[in-house]
């Protein structure tokens, strides 16, 4: 199964991921991270389609997707 990870410590709280998520399942936290920002996370992980739209929009590379399933598409991974 793919895994989507939100790195709270990298998040600057801009909320652009919330804005673009096609499933509308991303929200900003009430609490603040060490930088003093609210940070993004999934409200309903089960509904995530791993489309990576949030990650594309994130200016801070705070969202990554890992996929260990055999059919994983590696097109955007590193060289």
């Amino acid at each position, binding site marked *: 199964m793919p895994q989507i990870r939100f790195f709270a410590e990298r998040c600057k709280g801009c909320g652009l991921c919330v804005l673009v998520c096609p499933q509308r399942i991303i929200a900003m936290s009430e609490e603040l991270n060490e930088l003093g920002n609210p940070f993004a996370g999934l409200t309903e992980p089960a509904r995530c389609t791993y489309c990576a739209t949030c990650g594309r929009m994130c200016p*801070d590379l705070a969202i990554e997707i890992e996929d260990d399933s055999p059919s994983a598409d590696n097109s955007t991974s590193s060289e």
Partner: protein
Amino acid sequence: MEFHRPRTLKNVLTHYCPGCGHGIVHRLVAEAIDELGIRERTIGTAPVGCAVLFYNYFDCDIIECAHGRPPAVATGMKRMLPDRIIFTYQGDGDLAAIGTTETIHAANRGENITVIFVNNAIYGMTGGQMAPTTIKGQWSTTTPEGRGKHGEGGPIRICEMLSALDGPSYLERVAVSSPKDILRAKKAVKKAFEKQIAGKGFSLVEVLSMCPTDWKLTPAQAVDFVNEKMKAVFPLGVFRDR
């Protein structure tokens, strides 16, 4: 699908403000370099402006230039190292104000370099002064009544201007204000590098980008500003491809 940090970007937090488009553009440039497998023969030039600390984020050779001079510096490097990939990464002040001359003449010579031009219509690093690309009526700290009231002129459209020259091989204007725009921008950036690799000459991608801090908008409003205001003044599209 897998989605990771590109190899060419270092694993550090940037100094950019929340919602700033630079981080998105950095990713696109880094992804293009990764996908083309050119990281170890690529040399970037860092500008003066918000991206002045560019060298902290890119894991490839970088030369820090005086304000506005990257196309001239890149020219010198490319002529000496024709098989390396040389790109400049410049903001609107760097490219279209203090460095207008260098931009026009590098383009006119058809210099075989790639220019990534981030247009956010404001001077970010110095705190929100008018940029050459600030749109009519737009507030800035040096156009407190909005641009155009005191003889500041209007925004300079770089892609249109450079289209009048014979030199450029590829000119495209894109945006990073929506996922769809970002996908298109990714293709454009990659194509600009491919032009250089193929020896076609000067390539430039103008990227409309957000500056919530100095526009005094929320990140969400800043995205709207690009989509509604900037795109109306700076139409997206391919201006040259040969």
